């Protein structure tokens, strides 16, 4: 065990910077005698913190992280390509969510500084989670993220659903954490270590021989399955996503999911699934079940936020296909890069869709239903076209980022011979096309019924900026899918 030195501090400097930046808004508020500063100032401080952390992360990676994936604090945090890609993603999504929070009626007001503080700490937890290579640090990262999210949801201006959502999320999240810890204890018992490196090395042999190890492994995966809402552990997702303020839904559906998947990628490493038919079967059925449950349930939804929730469940299923492909491959870079590309693509399109939903929220109780979009194209073509592009991308229509994400995931699955899994995936994307098309039908092909329509609110500049960036990414990342993929792959190699 090496003593803690400057090198360790350097590696975690983006984390420290983010944490220090998160203190600025609350500190200023305290110094002003518990009076909110102008929301724009708070927003600027938050964005500055996120962007600063982004730049710092990139710099540190280029300076010391590029080749040898240095670890900090006695091998518990690592700075490698996965940390960089998903870390940057969660920082940028955090910044995007802040932009949405600034405008949303359920999140602005006299607790905005605290909200910014919590958001930044949630993202800090995500960074810890994604860079952790020790099971206990994984747990700490997960809890930092989750606790911040529970509170963020609870302090919404909306009175009823958000409280219910926060409590539900807290209770079930707590249960999931307990299951995760229980599983970690079994892994520790069989391996004698909580290090993920040890886990990755020992999994291929232990998973086939030791039942207790397999039990622990499955418990850990179940714990994560709660977090990324894989069926049958998904039941909390629609209620929480619907009850939470819309920008928080965006953060939970994208960044929180991305980092949890990154952690799963670290646990389910190359070759780990080859030895154990049981584990492989378990994960495959989990993936297929998740895709089916998410897509079939989404067919019956009316509220756009619930559609986002079920679509996010379905997308978790597609992502599991990529994870399984990584787990059975000898050389996981292709599948892992596919998963990361998919996470990036999924995050921009979902955040974009959430942003468009935010445009319609007059007050904190607004429920945007599919029917209320009727005739939007003639009243506000801009927002209708944006939402259409996000929906088509989510449905996987080329040349959007959603298509190439699916393409990479399914091609890695086929490359590993998991053809029936890829078959389930594409059949599900046909089912999904139906509910992604439904809002488009209402926006372009129906006339609004009186008193049953939404209007785009004026003067939501920050929201518009966020939507614009997402829109650009959805189109650009699709057209330059090749180079982007190459960058990701060379980063995580």
């Amino acid at each position, binding site marked *: 065990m090496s003593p803690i030195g400057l090198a360790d501090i350097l590696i975690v400097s983006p984390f420290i910077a983010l944490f220090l930046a998160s203190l600025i808004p609350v500190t200023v508020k305290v110094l002003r005698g518990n009076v909110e500063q102008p929301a724009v100032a708070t927003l600027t401080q938050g964005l500055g913190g996120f962007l600063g952390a982004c730049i710092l992360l990139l710099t540190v990676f280029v300076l010391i992280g590029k080749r040898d994936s240095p670890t900090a604090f006695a091998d518990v945090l690592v700075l490698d390509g996965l940390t960089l890609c998903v870390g940057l993603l969660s920082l940028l999504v955090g910044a995007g969510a802040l932009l949405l929070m600034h405008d949303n009626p359920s999140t602005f007001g006299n607790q905005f500084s605290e909200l910014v503080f919590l958001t930044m700490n949630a993202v800090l937890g995500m960074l810890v989670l994604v860079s952790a290579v020790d099971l206990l640090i994984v747990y700490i990262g997960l809890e930092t993220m989750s606790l911040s999210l529970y509170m963020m949801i609870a302090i919404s201006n909306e009175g009823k659903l958000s409280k219910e959502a926060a409590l539900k999320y807290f209770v079930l999240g707590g249960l999931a954490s307990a299951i995760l810890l229980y599983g970690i204890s079994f892994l520790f018992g069989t391996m004698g270590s909580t290090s993920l490196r040890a886990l990755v090395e020992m999994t291929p042999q232990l998973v086939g021989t030791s039942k207790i190890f397999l039990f622990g492994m499955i418990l850990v995966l179940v714990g994560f399955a709660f977090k990324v809402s894989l069926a049958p552990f998904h039941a909390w997702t629609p209620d929480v996503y619907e009850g939470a303020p819309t920008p928080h839904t965006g953060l939970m559906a994208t960044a929180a999911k991305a980092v949890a998947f990154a952690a799963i990628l670290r646990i389910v490493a190359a070759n780990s699934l080859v030895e154990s038919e049981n584990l492989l079967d378990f994960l495959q059925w989990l993936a297929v079940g998740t895709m089916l449950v998410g897509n079939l349930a989404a067919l019956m939804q009316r509220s756009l936020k619930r559609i986002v929730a079920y679509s996010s469940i379905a997308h978790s299923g597609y992502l599991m296909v990529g994870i399984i492909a990584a787990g059975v491959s000898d050389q996981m870079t292709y599948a892992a890069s596919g998963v990361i590309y998919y996470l990036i693509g999924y995050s921009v399109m979902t955040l974009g869709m959430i942003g468009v939903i935010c445009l319609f929220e007059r007050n904190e109780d607004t429920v945007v239903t599919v029917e209320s979009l009727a005739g939007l194209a003639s009243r506000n073509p801009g927002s209708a076209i944006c939402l259409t592009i996000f929906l088509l991308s989510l449905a996987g229509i080329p040349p959007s980022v959603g298509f190439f994400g699916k393409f990479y995931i*399914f091609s890695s699955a086929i490359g590993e011979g998991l053809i029936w899994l890829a*078959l389930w995936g*594409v*059949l599900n994307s046909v089912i999904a096309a139906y509910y992604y*098309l439904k809002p488009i*039908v209402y926006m*372009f092909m129906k006339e609004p019924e009186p008193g049953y329509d939404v209007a785009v609110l004026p003067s939501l500049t920050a929201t518009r900026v966020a939507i614009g960036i997402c829109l650009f990414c959805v189109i650009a990342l699709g057209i330059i899918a090749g180079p982007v*993929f*190459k960058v990701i792959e060379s980063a995580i190699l």
Partner: protein
Amino acid sequence: MILSAIVFLPFVFGIILWLWPSERALRPMALGFSLVEFILSLSLLGRFDKAAVGLQMVEKHPWIERIGVSYFLGIDGLSIWLVLLTTFLVPLMILGAWNSIEHRVKGFLVSIFLLQVAMLGTFLAMDAILFYLFWELSLVPMYFLIGIWGGARRIYATVKFFIFTMAGSVLMLLAIIYMMFLTEQAHGVMSASLLDFYRLDIPFVGGSMMSLQTLLFFAFALAFAIKVPVFPFHTWLPDAHVEAPTSGSVILAGVMLKMGTYGFLRWTLPLFPEAVEYWSWLFLLVGTIGIIYGAVIAMVQPDIKKLVAYSSVSHMGYVLIGLFAMNEAGLTGALYQMLNHGISTSALFFMVGMIYDRTHSREIAKYGGLAEVLPLFSIAFFIFTLSSIAVPMTNGFVGEFLILLGTFQAFPVFAYFALSGVVLGAVYMLWMYKKVFFGEKGPLVADEHHPLTDLSYREMAVLAPLVILVFYMGLLPGHFFSYSKASLDHLVKNKDRYELTYHDPDKTRSDR
């Protein structure tokens, strides 16, 4: 660069129209743009080397290098006429929809240009992923064309169209990905290029569904069969046609259905020779059923447009049996029939649209005696009726004759049955013509308050090029064959081991 220019110029036009501030100038601008595109595509004929077998005017740039996907366009005798058919029909569509599309004109024109990009890209793409991309992209503008400007049940029709087509094509995507891995095994480098796919030798076991080549063959064939549409996957077509606006039906029948048959010609037949030979009976069977079934159903339709739609199912059945006859006459006839169908069915849809604009009804029973009131209209309609039932001297005859000739050479049993379609086709078309144009004046025709007017100059301008082509293609088919002959001969001769190369690389380089 010429092919890229042809594919993406409509996209640029679409953007310009979208950003154009005034509503008034949109239609003339769009017409001008589409004519520019047509003239540009005519220049292909001049550059095209008729004797060459390989791909011409090739453009190839790496796109996703990691998995061998490239931006790869090329043209040969199989695709040149389909490209020209697309660019030829678009100006007519815009002219035909001049007055019938009243609201959201801008969106309509932009959709048409986007659709043109997707269709041209499908015909010219020589990379599997690029092909799939254009193939799927064509769904989106068509979805809007039917869904926004369509009839009463438009939403049902458009969603059905989208889901059906997508369900077919996702399996093709899996097959494409699988074949990319096969190229990696066979050549060491992963590639999505069609030319590399052709070089694959995919194992085939007759009599087993689980043989690799059979599975890949059916994955591709299903996607194309739904698009064509082949019986029993045709049910989306009548719905889509009846609900679509006139120009939507025209482009759907004229070009989009050809994407399916072109897919068979370019992909399925050369890629899976053993499977094609083994399973050809199945496709000949469904093709023949399609011919007869489409004709019989067309006979009992009370709606003119639905009748024309079912006649499409019947005509596309001919194309299918011509393709799977796999001999020179059959393939030539099939390719020719694709063009014929693009001309005559489009024209019939145009004319149905014109009469609908006047009376707002398509019910055959409400018409009658139209020939007396609208002489010019009746003459034009009669010409296209003759073309549709393949009377000699019209284009339809050449195509159907060659297809039946080819089928007789290869599979006489199916040809006997397919032949009955010729008679049935004459029955339903002439029966409809009689009811609509002769006899007692129907309630719509006799209505004193709304006297019907004959063809306007604009409508004549739409129909005149089509009339000319009906006879030109019927009397001088040699001109058309001369462009596609080399490629088709090459396909027939090498059907067991088809390969394609670039033609004249020096010229290609100077093109860039």
